[in-house]
C-alpha cells in the first residue's frame, strides 16, 4: 500500500481522471454542443474533433480566430472590438488557467501526455529497453521545433490564409497534423480521423504528416519518454504566460546540491538545466517543464527542490522520499 503513496501515483490518478473528463466528459458533464464545453480554451491537447469530450484545446480556437477574425481586421477594421472579443476571451481564459495550474496541464492533465506515459509504462512491462535520456545535442535541436510549430501552424499560416495569401487548407493547419486528434477520437471508437485525404495535394501532405507523426509517436513512446511533448506547441503557448503561473518548480539556494544530476536524469523532458546549483531560491520552471514532479521525487537531498503554489510549499525533496522512490522504481522495472 505504501508503494502507492507517491506523487507519481497521485499524478496517474489525476491524469486518468482528466483523461476521462477531456475525452468522454461530454457524456456526463457537458453535452455534444460547443456551448456546453467547459472552457473551450484549454492549454492542453484535448481535441475538439472528439465530440464526446468535456472540453477542448485553445489551439483550435486560436487558429480559427486568427484565420477568420484577426485577419479580417487588416482588410476591414470596422467593428474591430467585436472581431477581437473571441480572441481576447480565448487568451484571457488561457491566462487564467495557466495562472491557476500552469504547466501542470501538461504533466497532470493532457490526454496525449497520459497516452504517451501509458504506452511507455506498457513498454517497460514488456521489457522494451528504454533510452533513458536524449543527448544534449538532440535535445537542443528539438527545443525550437515547438516554437516553429506554434508560430507557423497556429498563428502565421491561419493569418495569411485569412488574408487570402494561402489556400484554405492552411486555415487550421495544426489540427490537421495533431496526433491528439487521432488519439482522442480513436479512444471514443471513432476512426474517421485516421485518414489520408486526396482532396488536394496540400490536404494529402498534411494528412500524410499527421498519420506518419502519429505512428512515429506511438513507436517512440515505447522507448523514449514523452516524445511528442518535446515539440508540442502547447508548451510554447503556456510559456508565453508562465511568469503568471502560481505553481512553480523552485530550487533553494543551498550547499546541499552537489549537482549529482539525479533530477535531470529523472526528468522525462531531459531538462538538464535543473541540476545546476543556485545561490538563492530560484524559480527554475523551464519552458519544457511539464510539472510532473519527478525531479523533486528523485532529488536525494532535503529541501533542495520543491514545488510551490504561490507562497505555499506543496512538495519538497527529501532523502527518505528519494530512497522510497528509487525502491519503487526498481520494483516497477523489475530490477
Amino acid at each position, binding site marked *: 500500500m505504501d508503494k502507492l503513496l507517491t506523487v507519481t501515483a497521485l499524478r496517474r490518478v489525476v491524469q486518468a481522471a482528466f483523461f476521462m473528463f477531456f475525452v468522454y466528459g461530454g457524456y456526463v458533464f457537458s*453535452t*455534444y*454542443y460547443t*456551448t*456546453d464545453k467547459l472552457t473551450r480554451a484549454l492549454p492542453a491537447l484535448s481535441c475538439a474533433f472528439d*465530440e464526446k469530450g468535456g472540453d477542448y484545446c485553445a489551439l483550435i480556437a486560436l487558429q480559427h480566430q486568427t*484565420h*477568420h477574425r484577426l*485577419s*479580417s481586421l487588416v*482588410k476591414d477594421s470596422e467593428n474591430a472590438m*467585436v472581431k477581437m472579443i*473571441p480572441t481576447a*476571451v480565448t487568451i484571457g481564459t488561457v491566462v487564467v488557467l495557466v495562472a491557476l495550474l500552469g504547466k501542470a496541464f501538461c504533466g497532470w492533465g493532457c490526454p496525449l501526455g497520459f497516452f504517451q506515459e501509458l504506452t511507455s509504462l506498457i513498454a517497460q512491462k514488456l521489457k522494451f*529497453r528504454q*533510452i533513458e535520456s536524449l543527448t544534449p545535442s538532440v535535445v537542443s535541436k528539438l527545443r525550437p521545433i515547438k516554437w516553429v510549430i506554434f508560430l507557423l501552424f497556429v498563428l502565421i499560416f491561419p493569418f495569411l490564409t*485569412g488574408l*487570402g495569401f494561402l*489556400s*484554405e*487548407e492552411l*486555415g487550421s493547419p495544426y489540427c490537421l497534423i495533431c496526433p491528439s486528434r*487521432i488519439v482522442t477520437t480513436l479512444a471514443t471508437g471513432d*476512426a*474517421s480521423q*485516421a*485518414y*489520408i*485525404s*486526396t*482532396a*488536394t495535394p496540400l*490536404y494529402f501532405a498534411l*494528412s*500524410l504528416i499527421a*498519420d*506518419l*507523426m*502519429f*505512428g*512515429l*509517436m*506511438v*513507436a*517512440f513512446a*515505447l*522507448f523514449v519518454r514523452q516524445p511528442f511533448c518535446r515539440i508540442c506547441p502547447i508548451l510554447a503557448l503556456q510559456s508565453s504566460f508562465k511568469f503568471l503561473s502560481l505553481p512553480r518548480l523552485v530550487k533553494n539556494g543551498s550547499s546541499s546540491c552537489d549537482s549529482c544530476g539525479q533530477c535531470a536524469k529523472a526528468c522525462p523532458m531531459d531538462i538538464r538545466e535543473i541540476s545546476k546549483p543556485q545561490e538563492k531560491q530560484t524559480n527554475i520552471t523551464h519552458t519544457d517543464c511539464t510539472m510532473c514532479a519527478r525531479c523533486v521525487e528523485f532529488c536525494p537531498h532535503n529541501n533542495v527542490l520543491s514545488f510551490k503554489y504561490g507562497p505555499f510549499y506543496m512538495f519538497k525533496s527529501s532523502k527518505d522520499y528519494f530512497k522510497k522512490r528509487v525502491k519503487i522504481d526498481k520494483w516497477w522495472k523489475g530490477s
Partner: protein
Amino acid sequence: MQQFLLSIIFLPLLLLSTVFGDDDFIRFAPKISCHEDNSTSATGHEHGKKRETPKFTILGTDMLPQSLECYLPTLEKQSLPLKDGVFSQPAGYSGFYAAVAMVSENNISKSAVRYMRGMGRNINISTAKLTDMQKTKFEIVPQPLPRYLSSKKYTFVLKFDSLPLAHTDVLFETENGSKSTLTTNEGGKIEITMPNDFSNIDFKNGKNKNSEFWLCASVDKGGVKYTTTLSSAYSPNPSDWWQSKNLGFAVIFVGFLGGMLIYRKTLAKKADNNG
C-alpha cells in the same frame, strides 16, 4: 399474373403515399435550390466573403401559415415576416435558430420545424435547451443537432406534448430520392443512417453539393390529425469520397515501423559505443 405481381409491388407504395400524402404535410426548404446555393467544400468554407442571408420557403400549403416564428439561440421567440412566400434567416447570434410554421386546415394541424445555423455574437446557452423546448404540439426532435453527413447514424425523438411517442411511423425522404419508413421505439426514438446518395461530387473545385432530407410523421389525437416535419441539409461524408481510413491506418503503420527502425538503430549505435 403480371398484374398481380405489379399490384403486390405498387399497393404498399400506394398505401404509403396515402398515409404520407403530400397534402398533409408542410415543410421548410431553402429558397434557392440547394444544388446551386447550399454547397460545402473539401477545402473548407470560403471565408472573408460575405455570406448571403439564407432564405427559406414553406412547401405543402397554398395558405399563409397561421403562425411562423423563430426561436433564437437565446431561446427568445420572434415572428418571421414572410415576403412573397419567402423568409430570411434571422441573424445576430452564433448558434442555432429554430423556425417553426403552423397551418391548421380541415381538422388537420400541420407543423414544420427547421434548425438553422447562424453566425454572430457568442452566447452561452446550450443548443440542447433549444431542441428540448416544446415548439409545437407534435414535433421531431434531433438528438443531438449536428452537421448531418452521409453514412453517419443520427437519432431523433418523436414527441407529442413534449412526451415521446412510441410505435409511430416516420417517413424519411431525401432530395436525392432516398426514401424509407421507420417506426419509433418505446422511447419515441428512431435512428437513421443518412444515405450516401450523392452523385457527381466535384470536391476538388470546392463544390460539394449538399442535399435536403425531411422526416414526416402524423398522429390522430382527439379527432384532430397532427402532422409534423423536420427538414435539414446534409452533406457528403468525406470518408465516403476523398478520405481513406485504410490508407490512413497503413501510413500510421509505416510511421510506427519507421519509429521501430530508429529504435533498433539507436540501440545498435549504443551497443557499438559501449563495446
